């Protein structure tokens, strides 16, 4: 929580004034029993009606001043709390955007979303309540005690004993039940889990006729939950009766002491009434305080979760765009070495005219955070500019991992990835990612229009450029039939479009940016074969001859690539053209023949 408090710094004035005015209000409230005592002792005692009226006026005035103080306090509290959460949310959003893919993977986006929404709201609520009540309630409790001392020291001693006793009871019961409520929550989660499971798995559960067994399991869980709730309930049900008895016992004592003190002339009748009033004020505030503590505990738990997000630092350091010349020179030297080495390499054989590589993987290894085994091992590839590279392999073979390293979504655990001859770590973030257009596996679009989405690639693209990108991505036809064409609405996540349409639009979005390197990460999987083929033809004609990476499970999608990389369990099982691989790469053969009829004469 401490670290979050800096978001209150723009609201120092409000943060101080809110509780201050609350205390003022409380002070005026504390005068009421004194005025009442005066009415009884002087007004009634001396039958002075004028005095009674005057004091009545003072009571109204005290109430009015209290009201004004309180409204002021509420305003400041609301302003500080809302301002606090606004600043907090801004910082949190900014921070989340600065995290690298590794951190996003470990945290998971769904938790990030709840932390930014409901957790922040809880904290805002907590701040608001603390500013309003946290000082007021103890102030009234202790204020009432002090006021009692001004009336009579001896009677006030009863307050001195009662207040800690009440505190022990109220907070003791809370301390006892709080951990039990956590168990109740866990029990409720179990009941919820069982319910959800039986909905999502309805078909399988029925297919295996497990209905009765599942019902038994549910009822067991439900019973555990109910039992827990009853146990906790029995304890917390004690709070009210016990505090009630303590307060009233104190009142009885107070009346007795009062009687003795009045009898020997130390205090007046009216003052006894005032003392009793102070005691009941304490009871009211104590209940408020107990409720407040619950709100605060919740808010603190949420604050800790938010803080945990702030504590996660991006594991990836980006260089500022400017100061890279030295590094660039160093990289250039290395590239020359690579080029020399590549002279007798198969890539050189195919494209002898290229001396410059768009992308180089130099013995790259990748282990994801928290993973036991390497996801990529010793990947060594050189891709000349303008080449089309196909990447194929089974599920989990590391295809996506490989291409995700080019825009530096993940850093290599060993080895280097070079783009245009420079280590990706020497680039500024925008500098690198502007070169690269990547179409991710999951076709994600954002709420807005088709145009809005395409402009993500390049904010200043003209309509003509957008249509050209759509044409290349094989999306022109269906966009033309949409009402509003480029201005046709796109729902959140693009839910109003089919999977194939979404994929083509995400491809178009990447093309709008006219990247030097285009990566399609299994992004044609929802397209039928004919469209897929048309797309591949269009990619060949791309202006500016970008280097293209195509990741696919389909052999047909990559067989015409200049270079095909075959991955198995994170290792390169082969690299070469279709013909070369078909001749000597066993893994490739297996994949290919699993999808294509083996020619009668080509069988093993």
């Amino acid at each position, binding site marked *: 929580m401490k670290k979050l408090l800096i978001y209150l710094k723009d609201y120092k004035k409000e943060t101080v004034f809110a509780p201050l005015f609350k205390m003022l*209000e409380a002070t005026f409230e504390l005068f009421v029993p004194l005025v009442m005592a005066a*009415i009884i002792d002087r007004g*009634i005692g001396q*039958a*002075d009606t004028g005095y*009674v009226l005057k004091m*009545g006026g003072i009571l*109204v005035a*005290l*109430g009015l001043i*209290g009201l004004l103080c*309180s409204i002021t306090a*509420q305003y400041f509290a*609301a302003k500080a709390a809302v301002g606090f959460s*606004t600043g907090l*949310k801004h910082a949190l*959003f900014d921070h989340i*955007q600065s995290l690298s893919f590794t951190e996003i993977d470990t945290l998971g*986006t769904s938790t990030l*979303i709840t932390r930014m929404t409901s957790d922040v709201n809880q904290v805002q609520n907590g701040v608001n309540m603390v500013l309003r009540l946290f000082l007021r309630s103890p102030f009234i409790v202790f204020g009432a005690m002090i006021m009692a001392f001004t009336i009579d020291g001896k009677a006030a001693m009863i307050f001195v004993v009662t207040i800690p006793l009440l505190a022990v009871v109220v907070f003791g019961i809370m301390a006892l039940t709080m951990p039990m409520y956590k168990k109740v929550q866990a029990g409720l989660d179990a009941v*919820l889990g069982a*319910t959800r*499971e*039986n*909905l*999502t798995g309805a*078909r*399988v559960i*029925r297919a*295996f*006729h497990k209905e009765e067994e*599942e*019902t038994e399991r549910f*009822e067991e869980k439900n019973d555990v*939950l*109910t039992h827990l709730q009853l146990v906790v*309930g*029995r304890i917390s*049900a004690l709070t009210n009766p016990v505090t009630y008895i303590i307060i*009233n016992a104190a*009142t*009885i004592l107070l*009346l*007795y002491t009062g009687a003795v003190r009045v*009898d020997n002339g130390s205090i007046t*009748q*009216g003052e006894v*009434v005032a003392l*009793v009033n102070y005691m009941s004020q304490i009871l009211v505030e104590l209940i408020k305080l107990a409720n407040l503590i619950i709100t605060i505990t919740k808010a603190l738990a949420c604050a800790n979760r938010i803080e945990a997000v702030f504590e996660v630092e991006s594991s990836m350091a980006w260089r500022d765009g400017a100061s890279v010349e030295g590094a660039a020179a160093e990289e250039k030297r290395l590239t020359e070495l690579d080029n020399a080495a590549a002279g007798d390499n198969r890539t050189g054989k195919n494209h002898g005219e290229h001396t410059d590589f768009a992308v180089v993987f130099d013995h790259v290894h990748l282990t994801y955070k928290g993973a036991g085994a390497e996801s990529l091992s010793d990947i060594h590839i050189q891709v000349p500019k303008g080449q089309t590279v196909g990447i194929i392999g*089974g*599920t989990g*073979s590391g295809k996506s991992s490989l291409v995700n390293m080019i825009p530096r*979504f993940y850093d290599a655990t060993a080895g280097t990835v070079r783009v245009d001859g420079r280590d990706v770590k020497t680039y500024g973030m925008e500098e690198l990612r502007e070169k690269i257009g*990547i179409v991710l596996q999951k076709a994600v679009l954002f709420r807005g229009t088709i145009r809005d989405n395409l402009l*993500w690639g390049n904010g200043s693209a003209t309509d003509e450029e957008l249509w050209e990108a759509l044409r290349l991505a094989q999306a022109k036809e269906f966009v033309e039939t949409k009402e509003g064409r480029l201005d046709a609405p796109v729902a*959140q996540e693009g839910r109003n479009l089919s999977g194939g349409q979404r994929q083509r639009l995400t491809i178009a979005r990447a093309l709008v940016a006219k990247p030097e390197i285009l990566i399609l990460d299994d992004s044609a999987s929802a397209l039928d*074969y004919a469209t897929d083929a048309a797309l591949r033809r269009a990619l060949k004609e791309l202006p500016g001859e970008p280097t293209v990476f195509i990741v696919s*499970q389909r052999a047909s999608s990559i067989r015409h690539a200049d270079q095909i990389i075959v991955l198995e369990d994170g290792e390169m099982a082969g690299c070469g053209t279709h013909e070369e691989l078909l001749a000597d790469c066993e893994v490739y053969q*297996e*994949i290919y023949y699993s999808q294509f009829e083996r020619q009668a004469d080509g069988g093993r």
Partner: protein
Amino acid sequence: MGQRETFRRVLHYIRKYWLYLTASIVMATVTVALTLYFPILTGRVIDLVLGPGQVDFGGVFAILKLMAVIAVATGLAQWVMNVCNNKMTYRIVQDIRNEAFQKIEILPLKYIDAHSYGEVVSRVIADVDQFADGLLMGFTQFFTGVITILGTLGFMLSVNVAVTGVVVLVTPLSFFVAGFIAKKTFTMFHLQSETRGEQTALIEEMVGNQKVVQAFSHEDEALDAFDEINGRLQDCSLRAIFFSSLTNPSTRFVNNLVYAGVAVVGAVYAVRGGISVGQLSCFLSYANQYTKPFNEISGVVTELQNALACAARIFALIEEEPQTPEPENAKTLKDVAGRVELSHVDFSYVPDKKLITDLNLAVKPGQRVAIVGPTGCGKTTVINLLMRFYDVNSGKICVDGADIREVTRKSLRENYGMVLQETWLKAGTIRDNIVMGRPGATEEEVIAAAKASHAHSFIKRLSKGYDTVIGEDGGSLSQGQKQLLCITRVMLCLPPMLILDEATSSIDTRTEIRIQKAFATMMQGRTSFIVAHRLSTIREADVILVMKDGNIIEQGNHETLLQKKGFYAKLYESQFAV
């Protein structure tokens, strides 16, 4: 369901606990009466403490003793009431949840498919909780509130009419103030929740798809859009929170006015000798308490309505029509050969949108039937009908000559082994999931099944092998691994008929080919229905059903269909078009 009907249902659940309810009501009455009596006794003591030397200690002691007894009795009554309420509330919640769950198990799939899981879960969890809190707590609050008000009025009237008049006349003011503020703030809260919804939507999009945002270096734009909404939210939140927070100070002020009124009028009466100082002090503590139940009751009414709305949603679920019950003389399918006949089957999910019309099919025991066709043509629907997840609208489906509506669901489904495209695993160990169809299977049988489905090698590598606990819906397993487990599950029980719905869609083609071999052994002598988009896996079927728009447009084996040069031939060609 009308509110009255809902309320009747609620009473039905409470009836079982009428003893607790009665006890609770009695104890509430006792608590309130004693609580109200306490200030009167306090007043009497004060009247006995007039001044130096004018204290009647005998009287004081007598009353104080009575007060002590009353304080303890009140505490006890309150505790008993709380415990009764708890017991009643939690038991009713338990009953309702059990009933809701039992209903979920017998709901037709039609209902489950048509409702989002989250919605149903929230009925069973959140709505039931809110109902319990709102209705039962609300009820006790309402009840004690009303008794407090009536009791206070009675006590006050018995002491002094004029002072009571002051209290009764001024108190409604706090009602008006609270109502006025609530009305004014309603639109502000509405605006706040709308803006908050807008912000949540943006957060879900941008944070949920953070990878795309970063891939396009779109962070700054996203932050700008966020800040714009954030700023608007700040404005309307401030207004909503501030204005609504005026309720408490305002009602407290009204309360203070009541207090001052009672003080002045009471004191004037006391001067004239109309009431004693003790009675005045009693009035003052009533004045302090009197407005509280009013404020509570106004809150309780909305809470009660809300609770009834929640209850209505739960009861709607509980009263949902269950699947057609089995006829009393339902037969048990035994020693199934695997002859399946569909005759003149009509089916549609929505009444006016025809899907399957006049479907006829006769499958001999041990035959392999492949169903192919474009997405949405009704392939999965056929399986829904075979398994009797849905009932046909007209026509009939027979297994070994018996109409499947006349046999027990259990025996029908027992005879099918099913692997669906959507893999579903329950929370538990890998073994729990595999033995679902045959709880008594031995370790050797489990491993043999896992080896046959090529799942053994990955299970072996998990941290605890077959005892590895997986979370809800498979947790950290990949889609392909989950599918392998689902296949193992069927491999273990080997029923006489099989249904494979895109069973290998998430498995890479190499592994798939290996599994196909296992499937081929498994399908030997078993009637099987296979849905797949990879035509290569279907080629070996005895009968291929080519579906389009809910109809079987072609039927035959691979060779004859190819020769026909129809729809199947076209599909097959497109697979090989490069």
